[in-house]
């Protein structure tokens, strides 16, 4: 396959960025999208040019490191992570636009790499449980109803990649925050911090400069793990409940 790539190039956080055009040839349909970018970078290095910086780690769709907005879609045309997207989703001769996540809470560090530490600070605000350290306790000692376990697991699938923020026209982190809150709030292990978790994590989300939800549903469409839009509804319900409890 021969492709034309239009890639966002930006030297550093303070520099002005722009789209640069590159031609790549000899791309196999079986290559992953990131392998295609590796091919481009090898050519750039040989030519003595600065390779394109992009985030990646596990390359098997479970770590949440890879990003990229491909032709206007977070993680590209398939419902998966960029690392699990393959070139067979494109045609020979295609022009592909590659841009970084866009949100003021996710400033560009270089090229396609953005600073997602705002997510870490949201987790630090309440995305944990209070548990004594030591050996893992006997699992059967804490019964969890099956529907609750399923609900928790559905939300625990969030890998924190930030595609929801990138896809949202308001740069909102509602889907990420709600997934993390719902995952723990429904379980007995998360019960001691049920109220403070939702209040503190939502407050941190606001402080980081993320936008609000206008229920366009773009986040849930982009999510590679299929976190449902109703996750946000559940978070709203938890937040209202926590405000009532704390007032009492």
């Amino acid at each position: 396959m021969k492709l034309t790539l239009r890639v966002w190039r930006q030297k550093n956080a303070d520099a002005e960025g722009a789209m640069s055009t590159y031609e790549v040839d000899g791309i196999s349909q079986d290559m992953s999208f990131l392998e295609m970018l590796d091919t481009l970078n090898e050519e750039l290095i040989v030519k003595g040019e600065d390779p394109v910086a992009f985030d990646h780690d596990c390359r098997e769709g479970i770590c949440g490191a890879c990003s990229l907005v491909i032709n206007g879609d977070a993680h590209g045309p398939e419902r998966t992570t960029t690392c699990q997207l393959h070139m067979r989703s494109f045609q020979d001769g295609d022009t592909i636009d590659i841009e970084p996540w866009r949100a003021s809470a996710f400033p560009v560090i270089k090229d396609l790499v953005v600073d997602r530490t705002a997510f870490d600070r949201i987790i630090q605000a309440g995305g944990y449980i209070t548990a004594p350290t030591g050996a893992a306790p006997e699992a059967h000692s804490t019964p969890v109803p099956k529907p609750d376990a399923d609900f928790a697991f559905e939300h625990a699938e969030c890998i924190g990649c930030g595609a929801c923020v990138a896809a949202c026209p308001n740069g909102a982190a509602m889907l990420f925050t709600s997934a993390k809150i719902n995952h723990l709030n429904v379980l007995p292990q998360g019960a001691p911090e049920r109220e403070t978790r939702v209040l503190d994590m939502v407050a941190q989300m606001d402080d980081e400069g993320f936008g609000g939800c206008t229920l366009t549903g773009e986040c849930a469409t982009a999510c590679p793990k299929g976190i449902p839009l109703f996750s946000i509804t559940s978070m709203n319900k938890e937040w209202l409940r926590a405000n009532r409890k704390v007032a009492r």
Partner: protein
Amino acid sequence: MTRTIWDSSLGKKTVMAVSGIVMLLYLVAHMIGNLKIFFGPEEINHYAHWLRTMGGPVLHYEWALWLVRIVLVVAVVAHATSAYQLSRRDIRARPSKYVHKKPSASYATRTMRWGGIILGLFIVWHILDLTTGTVHPGGYEHLHPYQNIIDTFSTWYGNVIYIVAVVALGFHVQHGFWSAAQTLGVGSRSRDRVLKTVGTALAVLLTLGFVAVPVGVMTGLVS
């Protein structure tokens, strides 16, 4: 606690949802009242008088009406203020656009902000036209809504402004009702179809019910 709620983006959304529902309930009552025009001047003029005596003899003349007006003003101000502040936050959160643009979200979803502004301006004109009579075409007569309404809808601009606003209202309610349900945490996977249907039904019902009046005047059904 009030402070923390208002400072939070979720709190402002809650204010928007509750004030929106208050206005929606009023609109349903308003639309039903409007339809009385099709039963002649006696019927609707008497209704206008009743609006001032309702709640009596406990409440003095017009007290109940003023109570409704105060609630509505509070709802409009709360709705617009939270919408403005949330929109500012949203625009700040996404300052740079993507080079590769994709058409996204439904028409109703994308037009919430402009639709809201149109509705806000419409309310000002509507009150000056049919409540105070300030910009009313022809001689405005207090407590004679039948003739006043005919006067307004006998002008081309009266019809245009009104119909544009009512269509904007339909779109606004279609996305707004369902959104309010999500904000208040009552939405769920199993209830989604019901909520979407109710929202759309309310939007269609309000649009048709309100549009019926200018159409009635234009076609000579009301004269």
